[in-house]
Every structure is written in C-alpha cells, then in structure tokens.
C-alpha cells in the first residue's frame, strides 16, 4: 500500500512550503467572491415581500452558519486523523479550526438575534435550533480551552480531539432540529433534495456568498495553521533558517 503521500501530507514543513504558493490565490478568490456577493446581495437583490430589507442579513447569517457546522467536521476529522495516524499536522489543523469556528458560530448567533428582533419580535428564544447552536459555540470554546490546558502539547492534542469527536453528534441535531421539533426558527430554505424556497434573484447572491465563505474559511484556516506550525516547530532547523533569512533580509 502506498500510504507515503498521506504521511508526507502530515509533515508541517511540507505543508508550510506548499501552502505558500496557493495562499495568495485563495485569498484573492475569497475576497473577490465576498465582494461580489455582498454588493449583489445588499445592493441589487430585491427586498423581501414580507420582511423588507431586514432579510438581507441572510447573506451573512446563512454562510456563517454553514461554515460553523462544516468547520466543526473539519476540526473533528482532523482530530480523528491525528489520533489514528499520530500525525502532527492534523492536530495543528484541529487547533487552528477551533477559534475560527467559534467566531463563525458567534456571527451566526449574533446576526440571528439582530434579525430575530424585527422578524419574530425577540432577540433570543430557547428553541432547539438556537440552543443547539449555542452548544456548538461552547463546544468550540471547550476544544480551545482543553487544547491549551496541558503543559504537554500532545496531551492537549489528544484530549481536545476526543472532545471534538464526541461533540460531532451535535451537528446533525442542529441541522435537523427545525424538522424534528417545533421551533421558532424556520426550516431550511436551501434544500438538497427539492427546490429551494427562495427566489432566484435572491438565491444567486446567497450562493456566491456561501462559496466566498468557504474560500475565506480555507484561507483563514491555512493562515492560522501556518502560524501555529511556526509556533510549534520553532526549535527545528527549517523554522530557524526561515526566521533567520527573513530577519536578515529585513535588516
């Protein structure tokens, strides 16, 4: 079996060097899509018949919530790969994903509250969707806290990977909560198996924003992973050389 490529992928140094090349492209593509999406969604998409302009928060709320959920799987799967293959890089990715996911979850909760006041008449209710989303926020914070709670880095890696894996059960609960129980939050607008209940003129900017958020997530996760790699590997020869040459170039 040629697992060699897989193990090479696990080398922080290899990742750091390879990612330098595609990082600017990723960032440029993300910013382009986000700019197009936000101008399109906020400036040109028609207003909603019932909600007026307040619906436009969907262009931030839905992509942020998408990535908060998808990002949890990225974090948990990275943790699982780290546990099984004892791969350094995947634990670094897991640690890097936690604060990004926490911020996205917070953005989804905050924009939801801002939208909820004019729409529902309240900022916050304890329904299944909102409560399970709040649990997701605490899970992200828990992974962050646990990964930093050990003096041995490897212990923090393992403990927080286990927590991240146990927490995965929350993701389908968040996703299906609006179908399984009576909630104040409405069911999903974007559907996989049937037609979405949003007008095409509002849908295209939304899908642009979602694609933009995915690229933005990949960009920020790569940047954060690279920063954590340098932090972890500062004793190694290649990081010392990298730092040495760059400070020499500056001086």
């Amino acid at each position, binding site marked *: *079996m040629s697992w060699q490529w897989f193990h090479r992928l696990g080398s922080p140094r290899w990742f750091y060097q390879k990612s330098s090349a595609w990082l600017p492209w990723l960032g440029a593509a993300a910013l382009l899509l986000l700019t197009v999406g936000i101008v399109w969604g906020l400036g040109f998409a*028609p*207003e*909603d*018949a*019932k*909600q007026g302009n307040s*619906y436009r928060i*969907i262009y931030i709320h839905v992509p942020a919530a998408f990535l908060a959920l998808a990002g949890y799987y990225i974090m948990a799967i990275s943790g*699982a790969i780290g*546990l*099984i*293959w004892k791969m350094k890089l995947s634990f670094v990715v897991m640690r890097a994903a936690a604060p990004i996911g926490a911020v996205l979850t917070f953005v989804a909760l905050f924009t939801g509250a801002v939208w909820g006041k*004019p*729409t*529902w*008449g*309240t900022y916050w*209710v*304890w*329904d*299944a969707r909102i409560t399970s989303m709040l649990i997701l926020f605490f899970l992200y914070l828990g992974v962050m806290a646990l990964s930093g709670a050990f003096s041995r880095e490897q212990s923090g890696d393992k403990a927080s990977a*286990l927590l991240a*894996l*146990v927490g*995965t*059960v*929350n993701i389908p*609960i968040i996703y299906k909560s609006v*179908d*399984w*129980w*009576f*909630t*104040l939050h*409405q*069911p*999903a*607008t974007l559907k996989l198996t049937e037609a979405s*209940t*949003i*007008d095409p*003129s*509002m849908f295209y900017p939304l899908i642009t924003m979602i694609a933009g958020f995915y690229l933005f997530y990949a960009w920020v996760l790569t940047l954060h992973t690279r920063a954590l790699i340098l932090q972890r590997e500062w004793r190694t020869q290649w990081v010392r050389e990298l730092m040495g040459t760059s400070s020499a170039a500056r001086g």
Partner: protein
Amino acid sequence: MHPARKQRLILVVLLVALSSVAVGFVTYAMRENMDFFYAPSAFAAGEVPFEKRIRAGGCVVPGSIVRDEASLDVRFAITDGEAELEVVFDKILPDLFAEGEAAVVTGKLQQGGYVRADQVLAKHDESYTPPEVAETMVNQASCQGDAKI
C-alpha cells in the same frame, strides 16, 4: 493498515457511535421538552396543563382577529389544521404578525379553554420572495395550517 492504527481507528469510530447513541437516547427521552411550543391539537387533547406558563404555536386563522373596543385586548385563533385555539393578548403585536401567518404565543391556559398570552412572536416561514413575485402568487398566505409549521 498498521494493526495499531486500525485499533485506534476502531476506537475512534466506537467513541463517536456510542456518544451519538447516548445523546440520541437522552434526546429521545426528553422529546416532549424539545418542542418549543404545543400545537393547538395538544390543547384539544387535554395534554396541556392549566395555569402554567406554556407556549402555543400555529397559523393565525384568517378573519379571527378581533380587537376589543373597551380595552387593549386583541383576540385571535391559531390552528394546526386539526384544532383551533383561542388567544387573548393585550400588548403590541410584532410587525410580521398577520392572518395566515404563523405565530408562537407564551401565556397560561385559562379555564375557558383559551390562552391569555403575555408574549406573541411571529414565526417566519422559509420562503423568500420579492414583492413583485409575491403579488402574482395566488396564495399569499404561506402558512397552510399544517401540523408541522
């Protein structure tokens, strides 16, 4: 795959599976508390306690909104397609509250079989349409009185 890795893989899969089953059982046991509100048919079936703070949700029955002349009281009925529930409220209704739209009310079930609400929330549906498109649509009311709103 290396036997040690295989073993760790099995442990990880077991961890996820067993924790999911555990949470699944807890959620199943608490299923009645997971609902944010009772449907009007639950009131008709006598499942809702009197004089306890509860929530009810359903579609506002078109033509049922009646404002009291002498007080701030407004009466309306909500339905889930099977039963109707009378609601009395004396505060300001949210902007999106309308006939044929879903609403969630918080209050106490009174002896007369109606709910005196101290909070009414509008429940928005999942459809988004521009005003021009909405005008051409035959059925404006998005809430069809389904049991699952």
